């Protein structure tokens, strides 16, 4: 246990207490000691920082869109994998391959793939579909980021695949005898049986969704054109990719407003906890555990 105990205190207990303290101070990390300012940081955040609200709105948008979408696409692609009797291993490898691509590389790849007149635009044009400007437009930059996320859906899909294959076949056989339609089977057998996994995925998705950083940082910096530190181009285009953690990073590690960044971190923690608790509270309405089912 001892490495973990040392780690627990060095990496969690002390830093948590310290950052809670810093959140009530003004501190730039230099020689000058942190100066106690009470609730000042929190007041500024809520009352005077429009970037805080913008980044929060963008982040909530991202969570609300990408968590449900990744569940739908994850279940959908896992379902497709359960069907073919041959070649499942091949398809699984193919579906999972993009998940291995590092986040920075995926963002760089999609900056190219989604650029105006790029490969994806050409495919959309071929299919007579509209070709949005993606990362150049404030309306389409976040959907572009969602596409990057869905491309790397592999882990979620594998978890759902295991869950789908775990559903006892006798339930489907019983439903077939009673003449249930495919939709009824999905609605009344498959979804309830995999609902614990959906719940697990949603919780993880919310926790990590609020910490969404890398892809947006790479895209924003590239579109905004700031190599290094310049807040003018932050969240380009037009602040549409300014997510909570990016604003926190800018405040903490570019402007060195360490007290303010700590306060933002604690508010983030509170928001994540609130969303997670709502999910947990709602779960006894829609999550069925094997014991309770039949």
């Amino acid at each position, binding site marked *: 246990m001892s490495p973990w105990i040392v780690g627990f205190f060095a990496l969690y207990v002390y830093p948590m207490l*310290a950052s809670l303290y810093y959140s009530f101070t003004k501190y730039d990390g230099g020689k000058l000691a942190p100066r106690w300012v009470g609730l000042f940081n929190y007041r500024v955040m809520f009352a005077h920082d429009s970037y805080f609200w913008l980044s929060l709105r963008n982040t909530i948008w991202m969570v609300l869109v990408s968590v449900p979408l990744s569940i739908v696409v994850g279940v959908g692609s896992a379902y497709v994998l359960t069907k*073919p009797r041959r070649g499942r291993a091949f398809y699984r490898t193919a579906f999972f391959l993009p998940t291995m691509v590092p986040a920075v590389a995926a963002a760089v790849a999609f900056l190219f793939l989604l650029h105006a007149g790029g490969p994806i635009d050409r495919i959309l044009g071929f299919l007579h579909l509209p070709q949005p400007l993606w990362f150049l437009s404030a309306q389409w930059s976040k959907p572009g980021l969602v596409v990057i996320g869905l491309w790397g859906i592999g882990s979620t899909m594998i978890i759902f695949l295991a*869950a789908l294959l775990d559903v006892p076949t006798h339930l489907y056989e019983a439903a077939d005898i009673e003449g249930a339609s495919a939709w009824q089977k999905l609605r009344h057998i498959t979804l309830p049986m995999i609902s614990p*996994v959906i719940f697990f995925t949603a919780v993880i998705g919310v926790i990590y969704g609020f910490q969404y950083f*890398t892809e947006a940082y790479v895209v924003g910096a590239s579109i905004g054109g700031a190599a290094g530190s310049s807040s003018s181009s932050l969240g380009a285009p037009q602040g549409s990719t300014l997510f909570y953690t990016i604003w926190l990073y800018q405040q903490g590690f570019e402007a060195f407003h360490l007290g303010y960044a700590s306060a933002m971190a604690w508010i983030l923690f509170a928001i994540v906890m609130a969303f997670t608790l709502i999910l947990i509270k709602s779960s006894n309405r829609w999550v069925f555990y094997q014991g309770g089912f039949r």
Partner: protein
Amino acid sequence: MSGATVAAAVPRTRRRTAEARRKAFLITVANHSVAIALTAAFVLPLFFVVATSLMTDRQMLTHDVIPHPFQWRNYIDIFKEEPLFRYGWNTFVYAGLATVGVIVSSVPVAYALSVIKWRGQRAVFLLVISTMMLPSQVTIVPLFLFFKHLGWVGSLKPLIAPAFLGDAFSIFLLRQFFLTIPSELVDAARVDGANQFQIMWHVVVKVAKPAIAAVGLFQFLYAWNDFFGPLIYSLNNDKIWTLSVGLQQFTTIHRGVQYNQQMAASVVFILPVILLFLIAQKAFIEGVTLTGVKG
């Protein structure tokens, strides 16, 4: 199919089976069509990345799909232009040492939380789990100041050292696996007079090799792909940049131009982990499955 239709179908069994076979065939075709379409959606982006990485500056802006000629020089050029070997080595050092650290520190903790039984164990386990839910932003400022105080900022040490203090996710995963080990194995070793360390090393680790392999793979990939950590601790010193920071800076400077070189650099970054995955796919998929099912 209801009983009535089956009864009506009896005189025409031969035609029925032919029809059923045709239907089964069509369903197979439909299943594979959907699977192939999804395969295309997942794999085509990678194909475009690789193809573009081999195009000339002129060709990469055209509608061509296949490089003509194959300009392998792009790869030589990016290695000349950017110190990719150094970035790669830094990334490898970080990922390799962090993996070793997580395994040697997490296996004993997982062992203490599963095979041995003691009072307060459940509370400690919940504490381990709850650290996974804490956003890293909450601890990052004091940790940064702490490492700055040690003079470690601008080196890989702040990224590697914490790995040796255990990783909650790895502990969780290993514990779930250790719990499935039959207790007879452990009891037998105990009867033979083995101490805790010997039991852990000779019995549990031996049986749990697949789970340990999965945890090692996850950690290696996490570190290989990590961007936030290297960004915070190494931005001021390009001697220790990892591939993720190097690639990000490269594309920001060359944004909108030289897609071929950007894609070549991306391939250099992606290829090692894709190869690792293709080699260790089984351990990997089993590990991912373990996270979800036992979660």
